[in-house]
């Protein structure tokens, strides 16, 4: 592992010989405030540090890691001296617990891991003054607890107040995100429903068979949902912890294809037993899809396990709600002809068409449908 890591880093350093340099000047500050503590990461462009502070010692217009390390304490003092976190008026001291490099689209940034505390979960004020005296267009881009409303520090806005609700309920907030994303995730819900439809009624040997008792139905549904849940939890974890990474276009195409399969299977049954195995197999792909959503919440590099568990829990809860609503309705409706025609066949055809369009869109990377 050590040799592989070293070789990988060497490869990265060779790739870095490109002339990156400039878009507009931004720094990226990601903070997590939980359990009375602050942790975070602050990415600051080497180009900007060079302009304000000087890092290139030998004047050869190249900044090397050695030169950065030599200026490490000057960089820490300069930057931390222009960032303040206060709790009810009292300043919370911050320290640098890690010092490295991160690449962004426009070049190399110093990445500092920050830690501080204690925080008594009331109003937190974050003050930011970095570079404004030499670059009035510099902006500090702040995200707290992976929240989707990102804050911007500018010369006109040097303080942002973070409210306690966001700070103290981060676990619940991520559960909510999970629930929200599965409810919004039309493709995930449709896949699940297409697999569940046959539980109460199916087309077998040329005739429609209606489930006779509730218990086998409930059992079947539990098996299918559990298999789906287990599979997508596994890949959500694997992908979020960066153990496995896949191109998102591929993942999204497979997810859409799974819905096509699920829908078609209700009309021309290809899989009649062991539906749970299909749910598991395609569930793996759906998990990668959830991981992309989770990644967009912007927690990369920070304490990710609790939010990940919370998010996953939210996804399961959201699913459970849908299944719990669906199951009794479907069971009661199963005898009616309308359920068979519209509910199973009609809906399956419609879903298959939509999902086929999605597969086409996602595989070839263009959009037709507005959803």
């Amino acid at each position, binding site marked *: 592992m050590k040799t592989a890591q*070293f070789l990988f880093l*060497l490869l990265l*350093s060779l790739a*870095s010989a490109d002339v*990156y*340099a*400039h*878009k*507009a*000047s*931004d720094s990226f500050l990601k903070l997590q405030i939980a359990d009375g503590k602050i942790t975070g990461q602050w990415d600051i462009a*080497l*180009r*900007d540090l*060079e*302009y304000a502070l*000087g890092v*290139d010692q030998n004047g050869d*217009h*190249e*900044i*090397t*890691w*050695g030169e*950065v*390390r030599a200026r490490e304490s000057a960089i820490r003092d300069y930057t931390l001296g222009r960032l303040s976190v206060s709790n009810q008026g009292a300043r919370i001291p911050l320290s640098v617990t890690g010092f*490295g*490099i*991160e690449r*962004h*689209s*426009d070049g*190399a940034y110093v990445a500092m891991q920050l830690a501080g505390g204690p925080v008594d979960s009331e109003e937190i004020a974050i003050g930011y003054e970095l570079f*404004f*005296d*030499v*670059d*009035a*267009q510099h902006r500090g*881009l702040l995200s707290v607890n992976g929240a989707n409303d990102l804050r*911007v520090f*500018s010369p006109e806005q040097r303080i942002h107040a973070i409210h306690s609700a966001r700070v103290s309920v981060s676990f619940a907030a991520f559960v909510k995100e999970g629930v929200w994303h599965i409810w919004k995730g039309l493709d995930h819900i449709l896949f699940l429903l297409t697999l569940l439809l046959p539980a109460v009624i199916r087309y077998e040997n040329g005739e429609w068979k209606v489930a006779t008792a509730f218990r086998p139905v409930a059992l079947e549904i539990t098996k299918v949902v559990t298999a789906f849940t287990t599979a997508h939890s596994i890949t959500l974890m694997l992908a979020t912890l960066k153990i*496995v*990474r*896949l*191109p998102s276009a*591929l993942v999204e195409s*497979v997810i859409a294809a799974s819905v096509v399969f699920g829908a078609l299977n209700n009309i021309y049954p290809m899989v009649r037993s*062991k539906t749970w*195995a*299909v749910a*598991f*197999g*395609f569930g793996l792909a759906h998990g990668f899809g959830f991981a992309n959503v989770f990644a967009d919440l912007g927690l*990369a*590099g920070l304490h990710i396990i609790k939010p990940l568990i919370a998010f996953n829990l939210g996804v399961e809860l959201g699913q459970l709600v849908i299944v719990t609503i669906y199951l009794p309705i479907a069971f009661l409706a199963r005898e009616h002809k309308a359920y068979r025609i519209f509910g199973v066949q009609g809906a399956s055809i419609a879903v298959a068409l939509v999902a086929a369009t999605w597969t086409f869109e996602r595989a070839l*990377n*263009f*959009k037709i449908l*507005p959803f």
Partner: protein
Amino acid sequence: MIGKRFQILAALSACCCVVNAEPFVPANDAVVLERLPKDFVRAPKNVAAQKTVEEATHEAENHIRNYQAAFDPRYLGYAQAALGPWWNDTNAPSATIVARASIKQSLHHFDAALKDLELVLGRDPRNAQAWLLRTTLLQVQGNLNAAAQSAARLAMVAPRPITMTSIASIAGVRGRGREALQALQTVLLDAGLPKDQRIWTLTIAAEIAERIDEAGAAEMLFKEALTLDSSHTYTLAAFSDFLIARGRATEAFELVQNRRESDALLLRRALALKAIGKAPRELELDRADLKERFNAARRRGDSSHLREEARAVLSLENDAPGALRLAIQNWEIQREPADLRILAEVAAATHDEAAIEKAVAWIHETKLEDVAVEKLLPL
């Protein structure tokens, strides 16, 4: 059943793993992390408060010149910071306010820039720099009548080559392309024309020539401009577009392949790669970088990239409806031929009636000639 599951898993894992950016510690001290531009200088030691307004203005003007050479937006920030306490001062000297207006124009704060220019011209009606800036600004906004009137005032105070270029530039978007091209070629006959004016005049002439379907003349003019300055960002961008539109994407790629730091040129690099069609992974890197830059710009409230972003969203993200929204938003702010071009492209791609109508109306109203656009619209 087992077989199917394994097949799926195998297929998934066979695909390449995408490397994501993560903090890392470089392998050793000699690793080069960043290369600085060749004319890079550090921030001056004295903060704005300790400078005189003349020193501050001089410093800002240097930064503005650097900005115009490479379109590196950091220079605008440095320029603005240099003007520190005089940024909102209505009593500042004219040169300072003109520098301010120039910065605001580059940040696409057009109305604020115009206000500053009005301030200067109110007390100094013969300020040529202010008239030139005002004329250009009004032209970018698409206020062509006002731009023409402003150019007439410019003619009274500025050297001939500058006024001729400015007037021709406006005529070139109002249906008198051929005339304008001839006028510019007359300007170019002057051997004493300063180098940066010559580049500016050549590029404007090249763009007009391209629009009126004089491709041969356009290419000669572009190449001449690049001979004078092979790293001129604006010219490189315009010439790459010209080449890509004519199926010469490989040549376009060669021009911009080492200029990833510039958003404008990174866009052309990606478009060239897409047209060439042989380097999907490199294209994907460029596409992803551009997307990150546009997202960062949006987060910081910067809307000066809309034209480029619309083009990227249309051609690299293949999202015509998304590109349409951006192109329309862009059109509300600026109306140069390049803005009409992207509007027409997305309008044609989405068959959006309102957008098509906007584009067609513009052409009828201004008599703009542009063969690329004419192909796309029902005129």
